């Protein structure tokens, strides 16, 4: 690994390099890393900003949406004067403004059954911060097939959940927690039920922290555990989550061997 740093890099990352767990080696691992962020919204905003600030070398952003005025209460990578712009372009501009040394790969597209595997396989680590169940299950299945670690966060109203899935290393996957998406209309979205803006900031920042830990291989990750935050009660709990031998994606006899089930959904 390249451990040479410029004077600017040493200055920019000095508070990281001071940390015994990070040091020059950890900072070099961050610079060499490629992270894909799915969704440039409430979770994707703090993720993109903190990963860029931290010096993650390459950050991919995938989203097909444009910035709307109703996003700005929580999606802090976007600005009022960028309403109407593609979210990936807006978030890329915000991340580059913080750290121009970071390469931002903006994928202005919707993740679907045709492009998911290639996109996911092109990165070391995937962070899911999207806003719908169809994409969440697609991201998870693509990560299982491509053997990529997935850090998944979700929010609604005053609640946040976070876990890390690495079934290729023996841990559970997203489908071990929820085998299938809820039927349409059974679980509301943030646009239907609301979300306190700062809650997305906390969860996206926790997700960024876990991503940095995974890249550097420090501390205890969240594989096999689910962190649940109830902001109204000001209560955080971290509980066990085990691999389900009957899981359709990562179980003993997996039935999902490709993304064709998602292709049917794309066209259905």
């Amino acid at each position: 690994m390249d451990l040479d740093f410029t004077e600017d890099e040493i200055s920019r990352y000095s508070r990281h390099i001071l940390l015994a767990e990070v040091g020059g080696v950890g900072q070099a691992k961050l610079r060499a890393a490629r992270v894909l962020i799915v969704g440039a919204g409430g979770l994707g905003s703090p993720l993109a900003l903190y990963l860029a600030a931290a010096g993650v070398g390459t950050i991919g952003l995938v989203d097909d949406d444009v910035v709307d005025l109703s996003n700005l209460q929580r999606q802090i990578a976007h600005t009022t004067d960028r309403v109407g712009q593609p979210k990936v372009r807006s978030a890329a501009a915000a991340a580059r403004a913080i750290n121009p040394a970071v390469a931002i790969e903006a994928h202005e597209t919707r993740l679907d059954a045709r492009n998911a595997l290639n996109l996911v396989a092109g990165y070391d680590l995937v962070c899911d911060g999207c806003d719908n169940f169809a994409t969440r299950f697609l991201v998870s299945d693509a990560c299982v097939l491509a053997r990529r670690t997935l850090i998944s966060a979700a929010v609604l109203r005053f609640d946040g959940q976070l876990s890390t899935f690495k079934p290729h290393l023996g841990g559970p996957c997203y489908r071990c927690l929820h085998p299938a998406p809820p039927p349409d209309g059974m679980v509301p979205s943030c646009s239907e039920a609301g979300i306190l803006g700062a809650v997305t900031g906390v969860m996206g920042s926790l997700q960024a922290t876990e991503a940095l830990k995974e890249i550097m291989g420090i501390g205890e990750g969240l594989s096999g555990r689910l962190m649940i935050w109830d902001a109204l009660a000001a209560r955080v709990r971290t509980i066990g989550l085990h691999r389900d031998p009957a899981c359709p994606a990562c179980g003993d006899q997996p039935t999902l061997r490709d993304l064709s089930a998602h292709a049917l959904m794309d066209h259905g």
Partner: protein
Amino acid sequence: MVDISVNGEPRAIPPGHTVAALLNSLGLDPRKVAVERNEAIVVRSQYDATALDAGDQIEIVHFIGGG
């Protein structure tokens, strides 16, 4: 009856009551929740096979997917 706690509230259930039966009696569709028993998620395939014991601490974890 067997005493357990659900979301911090005491609840009495018949002996041998399973996770699936508890969700049914709470009127909760298993497709929109996960069930935490004594600080670990019960995997969905075990809902019918998991009988609850006296003193079990059950929390209903809602399925959320916003970003």
